[in-house]
């Protein structure tokens, strides 16, 4: 998916920031998708937290499917 990351021209901060925004969106989408797949494969929140470098509680709080559609 990533061939190479080219740093956008420092002369164009607007383009660089737009890329940062788009990468953040992509990372968030990828993270949600990966969590869904992991849960389907019986990963625990401790497993997911470990893979993402956070505690089980933090991973569950931020990424649990039930929390994504706030009540």
């Amino acid at each position: 998916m990533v061939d190479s990351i080219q740093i956008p021209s420092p002369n164009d901060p607007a383009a660089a920031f737009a890329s940062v925004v788009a990468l953040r969106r992509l990372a968030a989408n990828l993270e949600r998708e990966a969590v869904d797949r992991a849960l389907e494969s019986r990963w625990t929140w401790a497993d997911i937290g470990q893979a993402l470098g956070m505690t089980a509680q933090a991973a569950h709080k931020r990424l649990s499917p039930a929390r994504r559609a706030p009540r």
Partner: protein
Amino acid sequence: MPLRTARHDVAVIAALLTTAENEARTLGDPEPGAEHLLLASLLLGDPSARDASGLTADRVREAIVAVHAESLAAVGVTPPELDSSLPPAHGVYRSDVSTQEVFQQARRLARRSAAGLRSAHVLLAVAEREHGTAARVLRQLGLERASVIEAAHRMLAQ
């Protein structure tokens, strides 16, 4: 501000926020930003934003997707096929800073409006933003911010 206008404004804001949030989540953003308020302004009953901009919601949706795709391509990233849409949210409205700023500005602009807050006020408040996704979306649509601002002012002066 007459009470009737205040009530009207509250109803318009609720409609804008609900629509912007749904649009954001369908496009894969958990919270609406200024670009989603632009979309919401085009979907209100009041046609002033549509008439001033000549835009349709469909074109803006496509432009939002295109801006993000091009910004990824600019750093050599081809996005994988992901189902990025999020289920609809319920309860408390959530929004990012750009949404809150657009609302504040739109309400300031509407302060002297006899008809209260109109969709063209929101269009104007979005077009005044120099940076961010909304500004890039307008450019992607072939619009100059200055022309949109002028068209919105003209529409609101009628």
